[in-house]
């Protein structure tokens, strides 16, 4: 395959592709013939048939399609200015019309792009679904203005009209609407239409997007019973078994024995020490028993202190949560959902 033939095939693919989506919806026979001629690359005939179709009674999408065929055809015939004019008609009929740069020829796409910049349009108006606490968030609004213009954005509903923004814009615009009244209260629940009015001299253009705004209760926070990552420690611990009790008994008894022997008067002689034997023996036996006995659990001072700090921390956090819940019960959760535009189900 030569490079020329490959180019022709590529152009064919680019020009034919946009037509396929709409081919089935076209009812006007003249327009259908124009579409067929375009598919057969019979450009002269496309021009004749499309212009003839435009003189007939067409639906909006059919009219846009007829101009689009003219635009593509003039583009293919290198009549760029005429292509631009045709595409201007397309976007005036269907402002949301978008060409896929990967599927149409560069000539047609650039002509479409020039046409867009020569007409004042508000395109791709989008209001994102969102949910926020009144006063702590905003509704994001995006749109594109094709020419520098004074743009006024409003939310219009049965409860009134609320100005969102009034500025000079060009190109991609990102706005936020806090959905609040002048006194700070949230706007009433209901259906609203976000209307974007663009004005440039005598030219005006408006786009709209209906939304539903509902009120709800703000979720309250649950009280804490523990802190993540922190657990209560056992407040008692079993000390390791040791010879300490017997050692202490030996030490204390030994002190008594040494003291007695050392202090005995030489002139009085040495006594029987039966009293010392009884009490000292009792002390040693007690020491031995305490040594062999399994140690009783004893309070773990550090753990008790740690648990107390943890309890204090949880109590403090719960106090904050309770305070925050009081505030939350007085707040309103605003939920905004965009609604389908009337007649948007049809093909553009």
């Amino acid at each position, binding site marked *: 395959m030569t490079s020329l033939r490959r180019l022709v095939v590529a152009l064919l693919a680019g020009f034919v592709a946009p037509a396929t989506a709409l081919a089935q919806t076209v009812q006007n026979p003249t327009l259908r013939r124009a579409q067929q001629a375009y598919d057969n690359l019979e450009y002269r005939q496309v021009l004749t048939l499309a212009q003839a179709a435009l003189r007939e009674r067409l639906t909006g999408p059919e009219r846009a399609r007829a101009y689009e065929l003219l635009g593509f055809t003039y583009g293919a015939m290198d009549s760029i200015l005429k292509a631009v004019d045709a595409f201007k008609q397309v976007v005036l009929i269907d402002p949301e019309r978008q060409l896929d740069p990967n599927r149409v020829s560069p000539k047609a796409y650039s002509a479409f792009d020039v046409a867009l910049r020569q007409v004042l349009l508000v395109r791709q108006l989008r209001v994102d679904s969102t949910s926020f606490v009144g006063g702590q968030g905003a509704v994001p609004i995006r749109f594109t203005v094709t020419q520098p213009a004074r743009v006024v954005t409003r939310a219009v509903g049965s409860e009134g009209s609320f100005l969102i923004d009034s500025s000079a814009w060009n190109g991609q615009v990102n706005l936020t609407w806090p959905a609040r009244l002048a006194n700070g209260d949230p706007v009433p629940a209901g259906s609203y239409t976000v209307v974007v009015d663009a004005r440039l001299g005598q030219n005006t253009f408006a786009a709209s997007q209906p939304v539903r705004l509902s009120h709800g209760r703000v979720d309250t926070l649950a009280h804490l019973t523990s802190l993540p990552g922190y657990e209560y420690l056992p407040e008692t611990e079993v000390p390791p078994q040791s010879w*300490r*009790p017997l050692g*202490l*008994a030996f030490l*204390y*008894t030994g*002190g*008594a024995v040494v*003291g*007695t022997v050392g*202090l*005995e*008067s030489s*002139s*009085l*002689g040495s*006594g*029987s*020490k*039966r*009293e*010392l034997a*009884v*009490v*000292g023996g*009792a*002390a040693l036996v*007690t*020491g031995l*028993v*305490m040594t062999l*006995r399994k140690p*009783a659990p*004893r*309070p773990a*001072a*550090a753990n*008790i*202190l740690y648990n107390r700090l943890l309890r204090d921390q949880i109590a403090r956090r719960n106090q904050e949560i309770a305070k925050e819940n009081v505030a939350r019960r007085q707040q309103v959760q605003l939920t905004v959902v965009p609604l389908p535009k009337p007649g948007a189900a049809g093909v553009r």
Partner: protein
Amino acid sequence: MRPAAAAVLFVLGQAAPAQEITIGPQAVLASYREVVSGLRYAGFGFGGAMSVRFHKLSVDGVVTRVKLDTADGSAATQSFTATQFDVWVGYDVAPYASLEVGIIRRTADPELDAQSVGAVRLGARSFYEIGPGATILFRANYLAAPKFSGGGRAPFSLDLGLGLDVRLAGRLRGTAAYAFQRINRKTSPGSTGEIDAPIQETVGRVGLALAF
């Protein structure tokens, strides 16, 4: 700082209950020697002990009454009954140590068969909990300003003690105590000048006590 203070308080709390009263009877074994090795007695008797503790302050009192008979080979011919009162007032200066003052008063009946003595105690004691409810104690007291029924003086007098307190069940305690007393009494009976008339006593007490 706070954990350290809490730990000290904890140890103090373990070593010394905040408020406690114990009282109970005791069986007493005693040996008594006076002046010379040939003058020796041994006997058995009864007594009672009471102890009051309030935080770091403690008061202990013991009363014993022992009939001291002449021991085998003793030169003594007459037995006598010794009644002794001991009181200690202690203040904890550490988790295991107290300073204490007190008095001792021992009387003999018949009065002339042995020396009656009274003195002031000055000393210290060390105590340690060797197990759950089991405390061992060692004390050393200097007996100051002793007075004797037969006159004389004692430039050096010492009293050593060993004690044991074991919780048997609930409020019931088992107690045992040993005391060794050495009094270097000197007396001037006449023109012979000052002579030594030492007194040495050992007492062993075993008993029960109720704690409140």
